[in-house]
């Protein structure tokens, strides 16, 4: 059934990382990305890997979940590796055939790139694994709030995101119902040729769109009845509050970044 689809990637367990302020988690993730891109030496990857393992351990997220997040980008990995292998032409030639040439420099760079992308994905998926989508939107709203000064509709964007997230399960349930109703009228959904299958989607998509619009309109009316008028003067149910643990996590990430930068300057010197 459609209900089995996991919503986002949130993996709810109780851990230190889960309890951190989502705003700090976003900033820490950005610092982590900077760590990986601070230099082109293997030392970046080693320290990055140490950092990822540390976070993974603290967050109590099973190791397989991290691996699972790499699967969808596997084609990107292969593509990057091949491009780097073929086009970088430095160092000793290891193998050549007609116009293709693989060099030592190419091999090194492609290995480095693969390592960097894998760490990048596992590391940043820690953010979505440990933070519920709603908290994430709250954090984004709070972090982007300085943009309000330049008239950027931060609150509205965040509200749109939370409404969209809120309605995913509702629409999935609705789809299940419509599918059952059309099956009862003999619609064939899971067999036939590709074109037939596409055509079979029409009896499901049209009622689904109609009902999505109807729900949107009802929600808009309901919000207006409750005098919703945007973010101005609005208080929240969950106030985001930073604790010493959050500042601690920020300091640790900052130190990691500093360490990498120092090591990089030593190596290049």
């Amino acid at each position: 059934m459609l209900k089995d689809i996991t919503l986002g990637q949130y993996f709810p367990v109780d851990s230190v990382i889960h309890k951190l302020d989502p705003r700090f988690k976003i900033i820490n993730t950005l610092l982590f990305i900077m760590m990986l891109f601070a230099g082109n030496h293997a030392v970046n990857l080693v320290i990055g890997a140490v950092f990822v393992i540390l976070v993974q351990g603290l967050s109590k997220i099973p190791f397989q979940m991290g691996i699972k997040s790499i699967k969808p980008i596997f084609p990107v990995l292969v593509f990057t590796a091949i491009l780097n292998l073929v086009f970088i032409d430095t160092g000793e030639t290891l193998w050549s055939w007609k116009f293709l040439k693989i060099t030592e420099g190419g091999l090194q760079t492609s290995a480095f790139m693969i390592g960097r992308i894998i760490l990048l994905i596992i590391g940043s998926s820690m953010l979505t694994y440990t933070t519920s989508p709603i908290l994430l939107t709250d954090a984004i709203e709070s972090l982007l709030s300085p943009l309000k000064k330049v008239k950027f509709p931060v609150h509205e964007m965040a509200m749109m995101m939370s409404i969209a997230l809120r309605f995913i399960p509702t629409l999935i349930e609705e789809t299940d119902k419509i599918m059952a109703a059309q099956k009862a009228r003999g619609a064939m959904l899971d067999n036939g040729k590709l074109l037939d299958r596409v055509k079979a989607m029409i009896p499901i998509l049209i009622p689904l769109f109609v009902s999505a619009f109807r729900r949107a309109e009802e929600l808009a009316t309901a919000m207006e009845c409750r005098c919703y008028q945007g973010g101005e003067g609005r208080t929240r149910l969950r106030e985001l509050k930073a604790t010493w643990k959050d500042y601690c996590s920020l300091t640790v990430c900052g130190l990691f970044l500093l360490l990498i930068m120092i090591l990089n300057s030593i190596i290049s010197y």
Partner: protein
Amino acid sequence: MAILKTEGLTYVYSAGTPFEKTAVDHVELELEANQMIGVIGHTGSGKSTLMQHFNGLLQPTSGKIYLDNRDIWADKSRLREVRFQVGLVFQYPEYQLFEETVYKDIAFGPKNMNLGEAEIRTRVLETAQMLGIDKKLLERSPFALSGGQKRRAAIAGVMAMRPKILILDEPCAGLDPKGRNLMLHQIRDYQKKTGSTVLLVSHSMEDVAEFTEKLLVMSQAKLFCYEETNLVFRRSEELKALGLQVPQIASVMQMLRKKGYELPEDLYTVAQAKQAILNLLRKDGKSC
């Protein structure tokens, strides 16, 4: 002879997870042809889940369902035929309309049955007429209709398949009293005309008392009873314990009997009650 039979029918939601819940528990049933059957039960008693088994939308966790003595899950490729023979109209069916015109929408089911164009046309027109859908409306978009008309168009879409068994899950929910009454009469006329079996899921005891011959009562995933409507309403104390009621008029008659008026038992519709009270008054008048 029974056209639909279940044996030890059991369905468990989310088996093996902490959310495990038995929705239908060892139901044994035999439905006869050519009947109006009411289905009642408290919210969450498993009515809707049971109904979705009858046309093979849900596969039982254990137990069997026989349609014309054939196990419907024996050959999965023939499940579609089962769905043509057991029509199911969900609650608020108007949300499944999708075609450009009402005519095309009603014809969707018959078309899936691979019927000829002429046969489809007769069926659509006949069904529309039975449900009081004006001929002019057939060429309009279903989204331009009023709520009640949409409901009728959606029900017509299932009726036009001429199923042997038609299941209607609260076809009157959200209609005004006049619309309800009309709809129920049209459903009964359809049943009489086609000689099919109609299962009417309802929360209104008045409606099932007036329009059905037999009642299927579900309680906490189990089949509480399946017998003649008037026999079921005699067990008013038991029904109350299940969170169900007898029709209001039956309560009134019961109270009158307690006060010493000589009224017969088994009065469940307003029309019957009116006649009985008039008879009683006439008798009293003579004796005065």
